[in-house]
């Protein structure tokens, strides 16, 4: 099954990449952009199994390794 993990910089952390993209969008005439934050998106293919077990395992991996809790939040989407 396919699992997606989306990792985003925490609100409190400055995201210069997001700021730069935002101002570029404005320069290009895409009005009304209020905020941009740039994160990471991981696509993980795992052996089919109990979704809750899979989630628990990947939650641990995301917390320990895939994200840095000091600066990032993440969410896991299964399917």
């Amino acid at each position, binding site marked *: 099954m396919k699992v997606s993990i989306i990792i985003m*910089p925490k609100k*409190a*952390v*400055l995201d*210069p*990449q997001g700021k*730069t993209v935002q101002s570029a969008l404005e320069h290009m005439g895409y009005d009304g952009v209020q905020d941009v934050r740039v994160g990471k998106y991981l696509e993980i293919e795992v052996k089919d199994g109990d979704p809750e077990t899979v989630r628990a395992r990947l939650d641990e991996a995301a917390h320990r*390794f*895939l994200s*840095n809790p*000091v*600066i990032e939040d993440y969410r896991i989407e299964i399917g």
Partner: protein
Amino acid sequence: MMRFAILQFPASNCDQDCVHAIRVLGHQADYLWHKEESLGAVDAVIVPGGFSYGDYLRCGAIARFSPVMQAVRRFADGGGLVLGICNGFQILCEAGLLPGALIRNRSLQFRCEHIFLKTENRTTPFTVNIPEGRVLRLPIAHGEGCYFAEPETLAALEQNHRILWRYCNASGERTEGANPNGSLGNIAGICNERGNVAGLMPHPERACEPILGSDDGRLIFESVLSALNAGRAAA
């Protein structure tokens, strides 16, 4: 003669520079491969700069799971001196041996240049030989050196004098323009609570010989040597 272990991760690239600097200072430095599970008989550990694991995922995120890092953690727990430089600093933060994190430079660009550093606490094993009021001139070379920590962590660092170095201008003033990466509070280097693990983004190992334009970096390594000597004398 003191013996330093210089860790080698895949794509460490300042490992050789650290070995060279320690040897220039007249001491022994040996490479230690990341797959090793023991440090052997070493007096201090340097986690060098580079792009361990290509900086993939996050700087230092993969390296910190190397077997050698378990040994480093035990060494630090026993009071051993550990210095992380640049990517080494990032690895120590990822490993939780130091608080906070190093994120993308505010300019979004890699920065390589000399900067000035003000030493904030001259009583640690990493700073004891730095004369009062002396502004250090050291090179930086990083894309992700912006120090970030939660407000509580920052307050604790301040309160316990664990901020060792801050970016400053030539006269030692902490200014916005002197900050090359957007670090909170111009923080360039910190230490742990016990004071035996430190990390900094600038490269003291690139500034140990006058021919390279500065030998201010020696002061940091000489501090470590003084602390080790004092430790030996006390033992």
